[in-house]
C-alpha cells in the first residue's frame, strides 16, 4: 500500500489563489497598455556589400530610440525595431548622411512577419524526399546488384519503412491539389501523379509481403523528389516576382496632409472623407478627387490622360487623384475619396478586362489535358490485356499496369515548364524585367503586334529644350537666371540645359515664382518674365514652350521643348520591328508631338488624342482581327488597354493601377529590354516544347518495354532520372 508521502507533490502554485493565475499581473497589463515598438521597413536600393551592411546597421543602432536594425541584402531592405514614436522620416535623413538612398516601405502591403511560409513548407518536404531518396536508393542498388532472398526482403522492408512515411508527408501537395481538381470535376496533372505514387507504394508493399523480386519504393520517392523540385522552382520564381511587385506597391505610402482648423495633420488617405480640406505641396501627388479652393499652380496630368503639357490649376479647377502638383501649394476640397475616386473606377475597368484574360490555357495545362487520359487508358488496357493473356493473374496484371503508370509518370513533364520559366525569368530579371504572371512568357512569345504609349513610356515624361541655338546669348543668360528660381519642370530643364551649354546666368534681382504663371524678376531696371504665353503677352504655340519677355519692346521669345526620349526607346522599337512585329504608337497627347516621336523612332502607324476607352477599343479590335497584342504603357489612361491586351508591360514609374494590370514590370529606366524579352520569350517557349518532346521520346521508348512486362525498378529509375536531367539541362541552354 502506498502512503501519502510517496505520491508526487502537487505542482507548485506561483500565485496564492487560483484566480491570480487567471488574472494577468499588473506588470503584464502595463506592458500591454504601453505602445508597442515600431517595426519600420525601408528599401535600400544602393546597398550591395558587406561594408554597406555594417555601416547601415551600426549607423542606425547609434540613433536614440532605435532598438535593432537588420539589413536583408537579398531584398535590399532594412528592418528597424524602434520606439513607437519613431517614424521612417527620422531614419531617412540619417541614412542619407551615411550615403544611402532610402525609401519608406508600407509594412501593411509587405507581409513582414509571414515571410514565405509556403516556400519553406515546400523546401521542408523537398528535404525529406531528398533524404529518403538517397537512403532508399542505397538499398535499391544493393538489390539490383544481386541481393537475394532474406537480404532482399529485409532491404525492401527498410526501404518501405522509409518510403511510405515520406510519400505520405512529402506527396501532400500533389494529393491535395489532385483532390481539389477531382472535386471540381477535372483531371489535372496531379491526378496521374498521385495515382502513380499511391499505386507504386501499395504494389511495393504487397510484393514485399509476398517476397517478390520487384519493389518500386525508390521510384515513388524519386518521383516525389523530382516533382517537388519542379514545384519549388515554380514557386520560387513567382515568390521573387511577387515580393518585388509588392515592394513597388509598398513604396507609395498613401498619406495626405489634412487641414483641420488651420493645423496640418498627416493622415492615411483612407481616412479622408468628402468635404475635408487637403493640402497638396508642389511635387506631391493629388491623393483624392476634388476641387481647388485656394492657391494657383500647374498640374501634370500625363499619368491620367497622356498629355505632356502641364495644365493650369486655380480656384474652382477640378483635380483628380493621381495628378502631380508642380509649382505652388494647392488646397483641395475632397469631392470623392477612396473607392469613389476616378483612380478606383479605372481599377474596376481593369478587373473586368482581367477576368477575360484568365481564359488563357498554359502549355503545361494543354499538355496535361492530352497526357492524363492517354496514360490512364494505356495503363488500363495493359491491365486488361494481361488479365486475358495470363487467364486471370491479377498480381501480374496489376504489376504491369503500375509499371506503365510509374514509367510514364510526368517527372520530366513536371520539370519541363518550371525549369525553363525559372531560367528565363532569372535572365530577364538581371536585365531589369520582372515577370509577374506565370504564363506571361508563353503569351509574349505569341505576340505579333506591339502598341506603345508615348508619355512616360517611350519618353521619360520630362521635357528638354530643343531650340536653344536660335536665341542670342544674352537672352539665354537671362532665361537661365529666371529658370533657376523655379522648380517647374520646364524651368528645371531649361536651367539644366543652359548649365550644360556653359551659359552663366545673368544676375537678376527680386526673382520670385508666380505659381501657375511663371517667374518674374528685375534686371537692369526692367521687369522680366519667363512663363506662360498669355502672361508675357505672346500667342501660344502648338508645342510645349515657355516664353521670355525682356521688359522692352522686343516680342517675347519662345523656348520650345520636346519630351526627352527614354533610353533604349530606339533600340526597343528597332528590335521589335526586326523580329517582324508591327509597332503602333497610340497616345492621348496632341497630334504634333505624337507624329514627331513616331517619325523619330521610325514607327509608321500612330494615333493621337486617344481617350482611355479608345485605346482599349483599339487593342480589342486588334484582338478581334486575330492579332496578339503586346501593350506597353504607364498611365491610368493605358490601364484598360494594358488589361485588355494579350500581354502587357509597364515601367516601374507607372501608377500602381497600371503596374497591377500588367504582366511584366520594367524595373530600370532603359526600355530596350522589352525587345530582348520578346526574343527570350520565343526561345523559352521553344525550349518548353522541346522539353515536352524529350519527355515524350522517353515514353515512346519506355512504355513498350513496360507494356510487355519487361520493366524493372532499375529501368524505371533510369528513365526517370535521365529524362529529368535532360529536361533541366535543356532549360539551361537558354541564352
Amino acid at each position, binding site marked *: 500500500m502506498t502512503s501519502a508521502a510517496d505520491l508526487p507533490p502537487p505542482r507548485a502554485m506561483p500565485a496564492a489563489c487560483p484566480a491570480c493565475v487567471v488574472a494577468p499581473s499588473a506588470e503584464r497589463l502595463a506592458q500591454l497598455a504601453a505602445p508597442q515598438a515600431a517595426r519600420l521597413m525601408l528599401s535600400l536600393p544602393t546597398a550591395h*556589400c*558587406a*561594408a554597406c*551592411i*555594417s555601416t547601415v546597421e*551600426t549607423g542606425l543602432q547609434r540613433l536614440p530610440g532605435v532598438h535593432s536594425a537588420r*539589413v*536583408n*541584402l*537579398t*531584398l535590399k531592405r532594412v528592418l528597424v525595431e524602434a520606439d513607437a514614436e519613431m517614424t521612417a522620416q527620422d531614419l531617412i535623413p540619417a541614412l542619407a548622411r551615411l550615403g544611402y538612398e532610402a525609401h519608406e516601405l508600407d509594412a501593411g502591403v509587405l507581409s513582414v512577419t509571414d*515571410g514565405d511560409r509556403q516556400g*519553406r513548407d515546400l*523546401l*521542408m518536404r523537398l*528535404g*525529406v524526399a531528398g*533524404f529518403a531518396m*538517397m*537512403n532508399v536508393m*542505397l538499398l535499391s542498388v544493393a538489390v539490383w546488384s544481386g541481393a537475394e532472398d532474406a*537480404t532482399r526482403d*529485409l532491404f525492401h522492408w*527498410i526501404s518501405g519503412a*522509409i518510403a511510405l512515411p515520406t510519400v505520405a508527408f512529402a506527396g501532400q501537395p500533389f494529393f491535395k491539389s489532385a483532390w481539389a481538381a477531382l472535386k471540381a470535376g477535372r483531371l489535372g496533372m496531379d491526378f496521374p501523379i498521385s495515382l502513380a505514387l499511391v499505386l507504386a507504394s501499395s504494389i511495393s508493399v504487397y510484393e514485399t509481403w509476398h517476397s517478390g523480386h520487384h519493389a518500386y519504393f525508390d521510384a515513388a520517392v524519386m518521383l516525389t523528389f523530382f516533382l517537388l523540385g519542379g514545384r519549388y522552382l515554380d514557386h520560387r520564381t513567382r515568390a521573387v516576382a511577387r515580393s518585388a511587385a509588392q515592394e513597388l506597391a509598398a513604396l507609395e505610402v498613401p498619406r495626405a496632409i489634412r487641414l483641420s482648423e488651420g493645423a496640418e495633420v498627416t493622415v492615411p488617405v483612407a481616412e479622408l472623407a468628402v468635404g475635408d480640406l487637403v493640402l497638396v505641396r508642389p511635387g506631391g501627388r493629388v491623393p483624392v478627387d476634388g476641387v481647388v479652393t485656394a492657391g494657383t499652380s500647374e498640374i501634370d496630368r500625363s499619368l491620367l490622360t497622356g498629355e505632356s503639357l502641364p495644365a493650369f490649376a486655380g480656384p474652382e479647377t477640378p483635380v483628380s487623384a493621381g495628378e502631380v502638383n508642380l509649382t505652388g501649394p494647392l488646397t483641395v476640397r475632397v469631392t470623392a475619396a477612396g473607392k469613389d475616386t476616378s483612380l478606383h473606377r479605372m481599377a474596376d475597368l481593369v478587373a473586368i478586362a482581367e477576368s477575360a484574360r484568365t481564359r488563357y490555357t498554359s502549355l503545361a495545362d494543354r499538355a496535361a489535358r492530352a497526357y492524363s487520359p492517354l496514360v490512364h487508358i494505356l495503363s488500363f488496357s495493359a491491365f486488361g490485356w494481361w488479365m486475358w493473356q495470363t487467364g486471370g493473374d491479377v498480381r501480374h496484371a496489376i504489376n504491369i499496369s503500375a509499371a506503365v503508370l510509374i514509367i510514364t509518370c510526368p517527372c520530366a513533364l513536371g520539370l519541363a515548364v518550371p525549369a525553363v520559366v525559372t531560367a528565363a525569368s532569372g535572365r530577364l530579371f538581371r536585365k531589369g524585367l520582372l515577370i509577374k504572371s506565370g504564363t506571361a512568357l508563353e503569351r509574349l512569345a505569341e505576340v505579333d503586334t506591339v502598341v506603345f504609349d508615348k508619355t512616360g513610356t517611350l519618353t521619360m515624361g520630362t521635357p528638354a529644350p530643343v531650340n536653344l541655338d536660335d536665341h542670342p546669348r544674352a537672352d539665354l543668360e537671362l532665361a537661365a537666371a529666371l529658370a533657376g528660381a523655379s522648380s517647374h519642370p520646364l524651368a528645371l530643364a531649361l536651367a539644366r540645359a543652359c548649365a550644360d551649354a556653359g551659359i552663366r546666368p545673368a544676375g537678376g534681382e527680386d526673382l520670385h515664382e508666380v505659381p501657375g504663371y511663371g517667374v518674374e524678376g528685375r534686371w537692369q531696371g526692367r521687369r522680366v518674365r519667363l512663363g506662360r504665353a498669355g502672361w508675357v503677352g505672346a500667342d501660344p504655340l502648338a508645342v510645349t514652350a515657355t516664353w521670355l519677355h525682356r521688359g522692352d519692346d522686343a516680342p517675347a521669345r519662345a523656348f520650345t521643348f520636346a519630351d526627352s526620349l527614354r533610353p533604349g526607346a530606339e533600340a526597343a522599337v528597332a528590335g521589335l520591328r526586326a523580329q517582324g512585329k508591327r509597332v503602333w504608337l497610340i497616345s492621348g497627347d496632341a497630334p504634333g508631338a505624337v507624329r514627331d516621336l513616331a517619325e523619330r523612332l521610325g514607327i509608321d502607324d500612330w494615333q493621337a488624342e486617344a481617350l482611355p476607352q479608345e485605346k482599349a477599343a483599339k487593342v480589342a479590335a486588334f484582338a478581334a482581327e486575330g492579332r496578339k497584342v503586346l501593350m506597353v504603357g504607364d498611365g491610368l489612361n493605358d490601364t484598360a488597354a494594358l488589361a485588355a491586351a494579350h500581354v502587357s508591360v509597364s515601367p516601374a514609374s507607372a501608377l500602381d493601377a497600371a503596374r497591377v494590370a500588367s504582366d511584366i514590370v520594367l524595373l530600370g529606366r532603359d526600355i530596350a529590354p522589352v525587345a530582348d524579352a520578346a526574343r527570350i520569350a520565343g526561345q523559352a517557349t521553344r525550349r518548353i516544347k522541346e522539353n515536352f518532346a524529350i519527355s515524350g521520346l522517353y515514353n515512346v521508348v519506355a512504355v513498350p518495354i513496360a507494356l510487355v512486362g519487361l520493366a524493372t525498378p532499375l529501368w524505371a529509375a533510369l528513365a526517370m532520372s535521365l529524362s529529368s536531367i535532360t529536361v533541366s539541362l535543356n532549360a539551361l541552354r537558354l541564352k
Partner: protein
Amino acid sequence: MEILGILIPVSLFLGGLGLLAFFWSLKNRQYEDPRGDAERILTSDWDDAPKP
C-alpha cells in the same frame, strides 16, 4: 552479413541527423537572406566574441 544490422541503423541515424539539421536551419530562417549572409562573414564585427 551480420554487420548490416549495425551499419544500416548507423547510416539511417546519421542521415536523420542531417535531416534534423536541415529542419533546424529552415525553422531558424537561415535561407531568408543568402546574399547578405555570404557578405556578412567578411565583416569583423563579432570576430572576438559572439553577438550577445
